[in-house]
């Protein structure tokens, strides 16, 4: 394995609810390398989303260490984290989270706006990304003029437009019917084959089957971490 992208050790996340403490993660150690394709599975409440948020630099751990491409994330302030998210991480959400009043193209451009790219270059990159997810003919549509599957494609285009080190998807097919879900999974497969690192959370074995490596969580701990025997060939 080349230089790992993600190295976490003894990661703990504690939430305080009044005088009650909830340990969403209780000591997770994990290494993920470049161009891996990982599915995170586990029962509801097992800490999958918490771990994803941590990996995506949206949240910081209560204790433990997190090195992202060798840099220590625990020491960073909000703006540093924002910059890492902008540059290195592409998010795909279960509920798409597109800006309702912006067109598909403007939605995809948004991360480039925040990275300070010039307008023309931005348009070009966003157009390329939308073409890649098969939406070249829907660029000027607003989200409410698109189907669920198309919205998720826009979201994926937005996630990959910055050429991030990893793409994180928390139940990306959760709001889609199974056929559309399989289409989206094929798209993730293509991205992975194209050299991207993909980490996704899912409940469904059918979805997880697309990944090369399956990590199962239970009660905030890693229960198993194995290569997926059913994975389609690269």
């Amino acid at each position: 394995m080349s230089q790992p992208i993600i190295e976490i050790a003894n990661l703990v996340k504690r939430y305080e609810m009044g005088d009650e403490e909830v340990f969403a993660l209780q000591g997770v150690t994990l290494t993920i390398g470049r161009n891996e394709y990982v599915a995170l599975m586990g029962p509801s409440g097992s800490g999958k989303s918490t771990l994803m948020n941590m990996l995506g630099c949206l949240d910081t751990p209560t204790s433990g260490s997190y090195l992202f491409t060798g840099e220590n994330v625990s020491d960073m302030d909000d703006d540093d984290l924002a910059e890492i998210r902008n540059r290195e991480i592409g998010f795909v959400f279960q509920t798409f989270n597109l800006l309702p009043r912006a067109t598909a193209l403007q939605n995809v451009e948004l991360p480039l706006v925040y990275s300070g790219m010039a307008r023309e270059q931005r348009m070009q990159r966003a157009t390329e990304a939308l073409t890649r997810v098969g939406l070249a003919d829907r660029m000027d549509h607003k989200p409410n003029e698109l189907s669920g599957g198309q919205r998720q494609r826009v979201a994926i285009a937005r996630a990959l437009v910055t050429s991030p080190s990893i793409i994180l998807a928390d139940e990306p097919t959760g709001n889609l019917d199974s056929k559309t879900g399989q289409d989206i999974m094929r798209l993730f497969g293509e991205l992975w084959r194209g050299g991207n690192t993909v980490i996704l959370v899912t409940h469904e074995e059918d979805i997880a089957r697309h990944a090369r490596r399956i990590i199962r969580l239970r009660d905030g701990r890693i229960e198993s971490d194995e290569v997926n025997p059913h994975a389609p060939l690269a």
Partner: protein
Amino acid sequence: MNALESISIAIDAVRSQKLRSSLTLLSIGIGVFAIIASTSIMSTLQQAVNGQLADLGENSILIQRTPTINFGTNWAKMRKRKNITYAQAQQFRDRMTTTQLISISNESPAYTIKAGLESTNPDVSLIGIDDQYFAVNAITIGEGRSFIESEVILNRRAAIIGTDVVKALFGQGSALGKTITIKNQEFDVIGILESRGGVLGQSQDNRVLIPITVFNRYYTSEWDASVDISVKAESKLTLESTFDEAVGVMRALRSVKPWDENNFEIDTNDAITGQFSGFSSALLIVAWISGLGALVAAGIGIMNMMLVSVRERTREIGVRKALGARKRWIVRQFLIESITLCQLGGLTGMIGGLGSSWAVTEILRGTMPSLSYVMPWGTVVFSIVICTVIGIGFGLYPAWRAATLDPIEALRYE
């Protein structure tokens, strides 16, 4: 894209919360309106007054029982002052040595002037004057002549009338030599004043001048029997000594003790200009304070609107943060939005303020043809600046709230 987007969001916010936002925008509008309208009207008037006072002639001094423009003076004290009687004024004229240009006059408002079947509105000023009046005041006769000394002494029933009165009674026809009636007394018209516009909406052409002796006999009652004395110094150089002499003579005539204040009003033209600007700046201060008060109230409304906007768009903020928006991007976005809101309100107030001050000018122009509208560019710029400042000042807290939202909680917000 981002600034334009923020502006269109602000406009959408106005549309979607019509009542609340129109109230907020209205109060910004009122604030800007008060500031713009008052400044604009005052500078228009100031310009007119300056012109008119310059017209009244240089180096002149006005002596009256009480001041022309009264603002914040002690009324109780004023009321106790004895009248400047015609006899006293004549004594004053006789004792003055530094100048011979002294005129005694008295004015009484609201007369109806008749000629045959025609009559004017009951708003004509009647002024009793002496033969020096035109020499001292820079008022000129357009047609005909002034009174001579004997006409004043012998109570001659003659009148010099303003152009407004001519128009009302004789239309386009000539007035010279005609007879007019003022409260049952008949007068021959011997002169017509040159038209000269007005001050503070009061026409200076809507007046009739008659000998002060006649005026005193028929048209004064106890309370306004005090006369005005105009004194013109021979030159700028003698203005001060004439002023000092006038003060001394008046004090002697009115038996003012050396340690007491003057019990009459004596002012130069400059001082009267000063009084007007004192009056107008007091008015401006009141208008600006209430305008700024309205703006601060509006600012609190803006803050409230922005807080609602931040709450409603919590999820969107979460998405933006997840995509890598730094704090200052979010702050910037919401500030642009609140500035846009303020400018929208400010624009309405500005249009209202400019429109109504223009309308007021047009109305005043009916009596003051010399008036020209003064566009208050400085104040327009000031309003834009103040709206921006308020947008920033009151938008900062909501913007900061948005920028410091926790991204995960924001994304999870329903």
